[in-house]
């Protein structure tokens, strides 16, 4: 597989469970070495998509490639190079954490068992490896799941809600670890999450799913900049809105909660004011409206019908 070939590529990937379409013709690609966010509300189809990429669920239509291998035919060649957490990490509760990792290392092969002490330390479970997993909290299982996923130094990590059950410090550690894996080891990370700030902090690119359909994709910074704007208080808001909507570099103008919101680069706020002043319209307050991924997400999942490309 060449360096330019996407690590994951899906083509109209679809999954129907009887009459319910869980994933509806989803197409996206993940580039090597990036941290890729997979966003969506509960029931959006994130886990089903991941399950298809890992060969756990058979697609109804469409296709996908993981590490250059078709998921219908050659996935067994790709998956030994993939580490994954799917839903809540599951282990044998009557075995110790170290034994559970040993079991996974036997499946993975290539002397992966030698990594076990270092991985336990890396995920913050040093000194707890001999404890039975049945005694672990959800957060500790999540950490152990991450260690299991990292066994064998996978090229691709697929993590489904990896910070579920972790305390804030644990969440921060996991985000740092994900970023470090991508930056220092070149590991591609496919991160499914509904924690928008988490995705905003660690991801390079993002796909947003809603009701099984892909509604937006692109680089996080581009998505955010598209949603940035200027908001102002002004008398004669109707006239001002009509005037600003006529400017070719303004994408949209609307009135909301007593303020006029203008979708335009915040650095061009002075030009907006100048244009208004030219028509004797003087805003009493002007400020940049910096969007977060949360606002983008909520806007898209509430309103968007057509896919947005950033």
């Amino acid at each position, binding site marked *: 597989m060449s360096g330019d070939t996407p690590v994951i590529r899906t083509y109209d990937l679809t999954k129907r469970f009887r009459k319910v379409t869980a994933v509806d013709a989803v197409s996206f690609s993940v580039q090597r070495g990036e941290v890729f966010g997979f966003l969506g509300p509960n029931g959006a189809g994130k886990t089903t998509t991941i*399950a298809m990429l890992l060969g*756990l669920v058979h697609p109804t239509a469409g296709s996908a490639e993981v590490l250059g291998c078709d998921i219908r035919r050659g996935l*067994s060649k790709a998956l030994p190079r993939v580490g994954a957490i799917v839903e809540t990490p*599951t282990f*044998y509760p*009557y*075995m110790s954490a170290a*034994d559970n990792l040993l079991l996974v290392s036997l499946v993975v092969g290539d002397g992966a068992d030698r990594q076990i002490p270092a991985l336990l330390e890396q995920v913050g479970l040093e000194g707890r490896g001999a404890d039975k997993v049945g005694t672990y909290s959800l957060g500790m299982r999540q950490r152990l799941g991450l260690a299991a996923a990292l066994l064998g130094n996978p090229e691709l990590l697929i993590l489904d809600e990896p910070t579920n059950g972790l305390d804030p410090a644990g969440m921060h550690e996991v985000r740092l670890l994900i970023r470090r894996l991508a930056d220092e080891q070149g590991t591609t990370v496919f991160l499914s999450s509904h924690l928008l700030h988490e995705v905003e902090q660690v991801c390079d690119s993002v796909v947003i799913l809603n009701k099984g359909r892909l509604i937006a994709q692109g680089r996080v910074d581009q998505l955010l900049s598209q949603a940035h704007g200027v908001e102002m208080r002004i008398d004669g808001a109707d006239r001002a809105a009509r005037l600003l909507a006529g400017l070719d570099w303004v994408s949209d103008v609307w009135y909301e909660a007593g303020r006029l919101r203008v979708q335009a680069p915040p650095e061009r706020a002075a030009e907006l004011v100048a244009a208004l002043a030219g028509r004797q319209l003087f805003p009493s307050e002007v400020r940049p409206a910096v969007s977060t991924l949360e606002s983008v997400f909520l806007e898209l999942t509430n309103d968007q019908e057509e896919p947005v490309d950033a």
Partner: protein
Amino acid sequence: MRRLVSASWLRIRRRLLGRALLVLMLVVLAVQLEGRVDRLELLEAKLEEAETTVAEETLGQLAIASYRVEADSLRDNLSFPNVIGYGARLATDFGWFLLIALTAIVAGEDSKQGTLRAILSRGVGRARYVAACFLSLWLAAGVAVIAVTLLSAILGPGLHARANGAPVCLDGLGLALLSVVRVWFASAPFIAATLFWAILARSPGPALGVSVTLQFIGFVMGSMLPFVAVTGSLVARLPGAIVALIRLYSLTIGYSADIFMHWGIPIVKPTGAMGAIVMADSSMLSISPWRAIAFILGYTVLFVAWTSRILRRRDVTSET
């Protein structure tokens, strides 16, 4: 495949339940062997008494013949080294139930608690997963058979002294060990069938219920039907339903396993001792060991292949 079997074997070894079942089996076997010596002593006493009181009556003669067959068989089986093979065969009476329980729990837990997702997502093919599960459980059965063999070998000289009285010699050790290997071989279809139910049900509980119930029905049929088949074929025309039951019984895994394990050795169980006398004359129950081998292999391959097929076609989600 070797790594997969090692992984599956690791979790069987770490299960306290597996070790507890093994200890239980050894304790029950020791009690059973002791009980068989007591039974032999009782039969010898009965024979001595019967020969002096009812020797002239036909029914009495039949009873005496039955006692004698059972006593001779027990004496032979409890002699060293025959007792090694006998112990292994005897252990299967309840050992099959324990093996079924272990298989249902081990094979069903992956689906039930979601560890199957973690294993398959590492690139383990579904057919390979089923094969590894089967082989590791068969390995566990092998370990149990070895433990039973060691127990019989340890208790054997003492049992021999009480049952036989003659000095211990090692003649027939090879045949005794061959019997042990046959017991291990015969365990394969029990594992395969239970594996099938566990994967089909996606949970240990229902698999355990179905497998144990079927085995229990087979066990009860095995205690009665050979006797019915033999006496029925000798005395009168049997009702169609009974004939159908006997034919059905001859198709069970348990029957094939019994026939194969007793290759060259008379099947003598206390409940069926009378029937065993003339079992070879019965046309309704085949006692061909070659047919039994074919059935054991056939059932094993059928259930493993069927289980793989079910799993290959299945979506492995959190609900499975």
